[in-house]
């Protein structure tokens, strides 16, 4: 299995003269790392540093949300009642399910099961696409009801219109940025799928699956916060 994988692997690192130490398969250990474990740790660390920038990127939007919700709490709660809670809850479940399949894809790569890995990557992509499809249905519904901020914005309660427009500005910015991350994630998964089919991953080398998983789970976490803050804040007022 490992040998088949390395026929397709570019001969990096191994050509440096010194043989890689320990159980490191030839060609997968870059020359500037001392072991496969160190190489994987460095890649995970780099991914986490990127995710920290993402935390603060989304954090700015959450901060804007917090301040405007503090200022216009009642109007925000009422504007939130225009969300479809059933679709929102289903989408949360879909995304959590996709995190499970992603975690299982990492597990399959770590245990060297190529067919399972491919199956779980496809399942994650299908669930990710389903999430975006449901989101598109919701967006269509908001456009239909003139809830997209701008000249066409129309709100049934004129006194709350300005604050509601702020709520929907934040809603479209936050869920739109989140959806963009999902689309990027689907691109990453497509790349992983091609690599997996070529047999690029083994129990010794599966770092791309692991760190792509980190990204996918991060996007899931963003939604875990968006869902209650955008969909559920006006529900107790019914």
């Amino acid at each position: 299995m490992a040998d088949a994988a390395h026929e397709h692997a570019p001969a990096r690192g191994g050509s440096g003269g010194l043989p890689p130490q320990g159980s490191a398969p030839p060609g997968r250990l870059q020359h500037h790392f001392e072991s496969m474990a160190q190489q994987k740790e460095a890649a995970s660390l780099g991914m986490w540093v990127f995710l920290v920038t993402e935390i603060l990127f989304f954090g700015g939007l959450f901060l804007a949300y917090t301040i405007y919700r503090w200022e216009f709490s009642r109007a925000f709660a009422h504007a939130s009642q225009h969300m479809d809670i059933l679709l929102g809850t289903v989408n949360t479940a879909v995304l959590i399910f996709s995190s499970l399949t992603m975690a299982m894809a990492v597990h399959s790569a770590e245990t060297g099961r190529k067919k399972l890995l491919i199956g779980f990557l496809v399942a994650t992509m299908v669930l990710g696409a389903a999430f975006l499809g449901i989101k598109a249905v919701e967006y269509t519904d908001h456009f239909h009801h003139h809830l997209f901020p701008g000249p066409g914005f129309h709100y049934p309660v004129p006194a709350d219109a300005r604050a509601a427009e702020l709520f929907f500005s934040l809603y479209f910015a936050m869920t739109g940025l989140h959806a963009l991350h999902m689309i990027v994630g689907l691109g990453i998964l497509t790349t992983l799928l091609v690599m997996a089919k070529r047999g690029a991953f083994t129990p010794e080398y599966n770092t791309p699956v692991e760190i792509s998983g980190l990204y996918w789970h991060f996007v899931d976490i963003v939604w875990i916060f968006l869902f209650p803050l955008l969909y559920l804040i006006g529900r107790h007022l019914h």
Partner: protein
Amino acid sequence: MSRQSTVDSRQGEHDHVVPVKVYLAVFVTLLVMTAATTVISGIDLGPWNTVVALVIAVFKASLVVLYFMHAKYSPRLIRVVIFGGIFWLAIMLTITFSDFVSRGWMS
């Protein structure tokens, strides 16, 4: 040299493969918590609605970070970076928000 030894001493921990059972338990808990947050949001708890929703969201996010993202099994350096990210987010949120809320107090 010392760099290598720190890595090797943790190698077993870092290569830890999380059992499928753990993933399934986390998945079921996340689904139950999603149902819980939706149901509780329909009950009028006053200002506590937001608190409960955020506590549940933080709990769900912690499960994802610890188990799906393997933070529980990661080297200390990675856990420090994760903590640093959350800590800086907390600085941004609390200092900006405390400034915003307290502005009216002086006038």
